């Protein structure tokens, strides 16, 4: 089938999509953008605050920003002004796998050893928070996207079947959606998680988690898709196509499925941030992706100690990242929704 993009993209949607693509690229290229390995510890720098970027030293202005290393004192850290480390672009550092394909050690920026450039400070093990936010974002955002894909797949299959075939199939399926909609999802999520093994590899946890999150949320998209299918099923052009001898599969593929795309797209934009937040919540509780793999949720769980929360505010960085991601997705969902409504 020939695919044409006939819709005129409004400027707002275009900009939001560009922003989103940028954000995801940033996370995708975490290995390159992040100056350090997310698991590399600096035992002498626990809870080091964000490194300050300087342009002025005692005598003059430098075009290239530089940093001073932290040196521990009694009540925290103090900048050691005796040596300065200029920040360079494209430096060699910790090795990583570029896009999971090949080994590389080139980083977007960095300073020479033993200097440290901790843009967002360090956690209890002296690991670079900035690098961990990027790597953790890979896990959390990927979890959101995969779970959304699972939800939308299950939801649209069930919605299409219920809406298209109607009758008792519809009643049974919609009864089940009501069941799922009336569940307090976080309790249920926790419950389902409780029945899964606690200690498994990060990869398995990731897929178990995304499937669980995704499988719990199918009810709403299923309802929406069913509504669209129900209304488009009775359209005259569907009757006409059936009159020409079009089989169910043809009608679904050519007439009914395209109708649901708008709804599914809007739902996707709404669900991804929600599911990222679900992953974050579960990992925050300690039920998600485990250390040492970074995820926004398990990074934030350090803040369950109030002393950490009060003293080391930069450890809220993953929450800020989640905030930005959610707001962009929300604005996109909102824009998509109003365009869908106005049609």
């Amino acid at each position, binding site marked *: 089938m020939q695919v044409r993009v006939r819709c005129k993209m409004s400027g707002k949607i275009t900009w939001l999509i560009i922003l989103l693509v940028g954000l995801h690229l940033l996370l995708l290229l975490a290995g390159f953008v992040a100056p350090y390995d997310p698991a590399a510890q600096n035992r002498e720098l626990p809870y080091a605050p964000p490194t300050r970027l300087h342009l002025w030293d005692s005598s003059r202005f430098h075009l290239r920003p530089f940093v001073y290393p932290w040196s521990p004192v009694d009540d925290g850290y103090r900048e050691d002004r005796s040596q300065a480390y200029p920040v360079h672009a494209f430096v060699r550092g910790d090795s990583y796998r570029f896009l999971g394909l090949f080994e590389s050690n080139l980083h977007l920026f960095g300073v020479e050893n033993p200097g440290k450039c901790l843009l967002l400070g360090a956690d209890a093990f002296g690991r670079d928070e900035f690098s961990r936010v990027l790597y953790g974002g890979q896990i959390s955002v990927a979890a959101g996207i995969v779970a959304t894909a699972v939800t939308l797949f299950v939801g649209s299959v069930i919605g299409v079947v219920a809406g298209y075939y109607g009758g008792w199939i519809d009643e049974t399926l919609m009864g089940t959606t009501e069941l799922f909609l*009336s569940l307090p999802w976080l309790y249920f999520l926790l419950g389902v998680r409780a029945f899964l093994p606690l200690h498994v590899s990060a990869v398995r946890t990731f897929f178990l988690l995304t499937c669980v999150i995704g499988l719990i949320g199918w009810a709403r998209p299923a309802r929406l898709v069913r509504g669209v299918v129900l209304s488009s099923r009775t359209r005259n052009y569907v009757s006409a196509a059936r009159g020409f001898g079009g089989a169910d599969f043809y009608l679904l593929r050519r007439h009914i499925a395209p109708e649901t795309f708008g709804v599914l797209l809007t739902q996707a934009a709404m669900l991804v941030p929600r599911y990222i937040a679900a992953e974050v919540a579960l990992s925050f509780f300690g039920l998600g992706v485990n250390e040492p793999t970074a995820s926004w949720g398990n990074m934030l769980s350090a803040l369950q100690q*109030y002393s950490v929360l009060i003293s080391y*505010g930069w450890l809220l960085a993953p929450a800020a990242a989640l905030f930005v991601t959610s707001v962009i997705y929300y604005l996109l969902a909102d824009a998509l929704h109003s365009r869908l409504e106005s049609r």
Partner: protein
Amino acid sequence: MSYLVRRLVRGILLLAGVSVLCFLFTEMAPGSFFDEMRVNPQISPETIAGLRAQHGLDQPLVVRYGRWVKSALHADLGYSIAYNTPVAPLLWSRAKNTLLLTLTAMVLTWGISLPLGLWAAAKRGGVLDRAITVISSLLIAVPEIVIALALLATAARWRLTPVGGMVSSNFEELSGWEQFRDVVAHLTLPVVILVLCESAVIVRHVRASVLEVLGASYVQTARGLGISRGRLLFRHVLPVAANPAISLFGFSLAGLISGSMLVEVICGWPGLGPLVLDATFSRDLYVVIGGIMFSALFMLGGNMVADIMLMVSDPRIRTGAADAG
């Protein structure tokens, strides 16, 4: 009346459905409470097998479910392995705290959102309306966990409210009035978080439904007849706009209960949430199932209240006209 009975039957069916789902999931669960024990070399496999048999975990799914239903009918909801007591009393002691938190939050949420939504709709396009729209969008967009952590950090940093737990350590020494104040002080932060998260959605819906009614032709007619603005809003618009708001009430409960779990864990409020979380870690299956059942029960209770209010406010449901067609 038959409407209410039907809703009640439906609610009971839903509860049954939830419990069946829970048991189906336990069947898929590869581990159990005793698996964590198995790692311990001091406990023999025979002991574990004995314990399993004692708790009926070696029985097939149907038998276990049957036993559980029997126990549920005795208001026990099964037996907690970790706490060595029936589940329901254990849950109820915590559920009271959850109810205190959620009910307070709910009353405040509606007390704030209804007038705000009405006001925003009445002064559509005004400064307040725009401010409400922007702020509610922001609150809807930002995940609860971010709002909760940010407020917690703020409150803890500047010592605005006591943080953690439900009472101070010297609670027992306080007088009755001071005890009340102490609980209120501890309640403030979690309630504020919940109200912020939940009211945004409700303000928007109230605003939208009031605007819809304001646009209806009979309201336009009334306006044309020169009816006063206040009278128009309270006599004509509000009663009609109330219906979608009441339906929303049932749905908002789901968000509130899920939200309260998160807030309870983050703020250390001793409600159902932390209990279920601990049970999840120790694989105390029946406590987890009981927690889910309790939360589902709360929701259904709230939905029943919404149904009754709808029936009172909407004559179509009373006469059964809404079911036809």
